[in-house]
């Protein structure tokens, strides 16, 4: 469908000291679609997300937003573009209530005074638009919420700002069956509302249930970007665990690859 990706990464490299975590990674997120980002533990998924949101600075590569090259140096920059991230380690303050968390860092004000009625109304409307009915009061402390409710608040916080791209890092990892279903439904609804959604998940059923495209990271390299309808569970699992599946994925590790590691070495 949509020709231009909302968010496109090209040739992203990222190292932590001597350890290169991302190698020449490319990836695209299209409006109205859910792109599943999969990969084994330590493949670099969270690192890639943090590069997009400006928590980490990339060593090389370009980020295109709506076809334009952008530089993102902080979560604020990302938010200004319309990129919102729901982090793996839920970034909510336990000691604040739902409204306070949803508006943290972007409080609505009248003059210099916090505009609580407006913030409550916007929070209520956003939660309603996501068909969230499980929270009792908007003034409940986040500490008192269940995992699923916290996740809901984190997602609601991300969509509050007419954002264009929402990236969710393992949003269902800590959830039970019912709450997982709820969150996935929410994820699907975001895409159906025209947003570009990237979903990180280890659960193949989840990926196939909700995504339009799959991007598989293998040891910091993008093994393949495919349409979900074009691949099987087994193929995706192979991409995750081995980096390739049939003619999909990274080229087989031939002698030339080893030559990189052992210049002049014998095999």
């Amino acid at each position, binding site marked *: 469908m949509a020709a231009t990706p909302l968010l496109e990464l090209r040739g992203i490299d990222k190292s932590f000291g001597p350890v290169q975590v991302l190698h020449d990674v490319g990836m695209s997120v299209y409006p109205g679609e859910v792109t599943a980002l999969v990969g084994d533990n330590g493949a670099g998924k969270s690192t890639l997300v943090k590069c997009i949101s400006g928590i980490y600075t990339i060593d090389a590569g370009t980020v295109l937003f709506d076809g334009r090259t952008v530089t993102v140096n902080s979560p604020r920059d990302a938010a200004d573009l319309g990129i919102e991230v729901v982090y793996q380690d839920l*970034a909510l*303050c336990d*000691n604040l209530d739902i409204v*306070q968390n949803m508006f*943290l860092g972007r409080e609505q004000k009248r003059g210099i*005074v*916090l505009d609580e009625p407006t913030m*409550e109304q916007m929070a*209520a409307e956003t939660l309603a638009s996501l068909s969230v009915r499980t929270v009792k009061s908007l003034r409940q402390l986040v500490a008192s919420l269940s995992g699923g409710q916290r996740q809901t608040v984190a997602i609601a916080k991300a969509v509050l700002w007419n954002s264009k791209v929402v990236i969710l890092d393992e949003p269902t990892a800590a959830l039970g069956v019912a709450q997982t279903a709820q969150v996935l439904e929410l994820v699907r609804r975001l895409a159906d509302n025209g947003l570009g959604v990237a979903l990180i998940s280890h659960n193949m059923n989840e990926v196939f249930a909700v995504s339009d495209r799959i991007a598989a990271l293998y040891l910091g390299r993008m093994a393949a970007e495919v349409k979900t309808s074009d691949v099987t569970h087994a193929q995706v699992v192979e991409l995750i665990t081995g980096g390739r599946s049939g003619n999909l994925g990274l080229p087989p590790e031939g002698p030339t690859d080893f030559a990189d590691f052992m210049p002049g070495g014998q095999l």
Partner: protein
Amino acid sequence: MTAVAEAKIKRRVLPSPVTGQEIVLVGVIVVLWAALAVSTPAFLTAGSIQPLLVATAPVALVGVAMTIVIITGGIDVSVGGAIMVCSVLTAKALVGTDGVSLGVAVLLSIAAGGLLGLVNGVLIAYGRVHAIIITFGTANLFMFLGLRIFGSGTVNGIPATLAFFGRGPDGRTLGIPHAFLITLVITAVAWWYLRHTAGGRHFFAIGGDAQAARLAGVRVQRRVLLAYVLTGVLVGLASCFVIAQGTSTLDQSVGSGKELAVIAAVVIGGTSIMGGRGSVLGTLLGALLVQSVASGVTQLGWRSQLSDLFVGIFIIVAVGADLLRARARRSR
């Protein structure tokens, strides 16, 4: 769906403006004062209450900033040393024939305090070492600095330039000591700021989860820096109160142990030592309670160590209550 939304807006349940702890503190203070009034009839007279308020002021004033620091999850144990530096510096500037005026003395003291606070703030906000370690280090540094400025044992012949903040008739308007009045106003402004501005809310967010606050776009380092600079500034003003309360001689014990008095007031006032929750109003009441106990023990002719015992008990009760509240919140 809109009906639900509207119903919630109408309910508007912002957390109550006063905490349970504050109501309890007011109750305890009232009972204590009543008991003291019965046992020592002189207690409830201006001659007894006025000095009590004057003595409460410096601790409560520094307590306002300490409350904010502790809300962010930090602490500042260097305020005693900082008071020493500001006091001796200001006292020295006041003495002599060409001693400075009231306004200059206050500005000097505040500037010195602000600078010391800046040192703490930069190290804590950008140094990634816990505040207690940093301020423990700077506390010793400040004391060393203070002693060097003292040079000899004492500063003598301090004129009454700062009488406006003192115990005498010049230090009162309508019977209320200026030092206490100023403290009251600053407490009220801080209370309003913490509750009704984005900046105030960010202090709480940082104490709740600094990482989450940063991801949400809060400028964490800048906020933390501000908290310690504010502490220094209020230490500077409080040092003027301290000089004004004293005699014409300032000795090297000035400021000593004040950090503990301030932290005690903050904790008794209901601020969580773990960060993320607290109230400057509680701190003011905490400081008033501690001072009332000290003054009551003196007036009853009891040994002064008993005052420390009571303060110790208050701290334990306050911390215990905080732990119970935290547990209750989690299990709700």
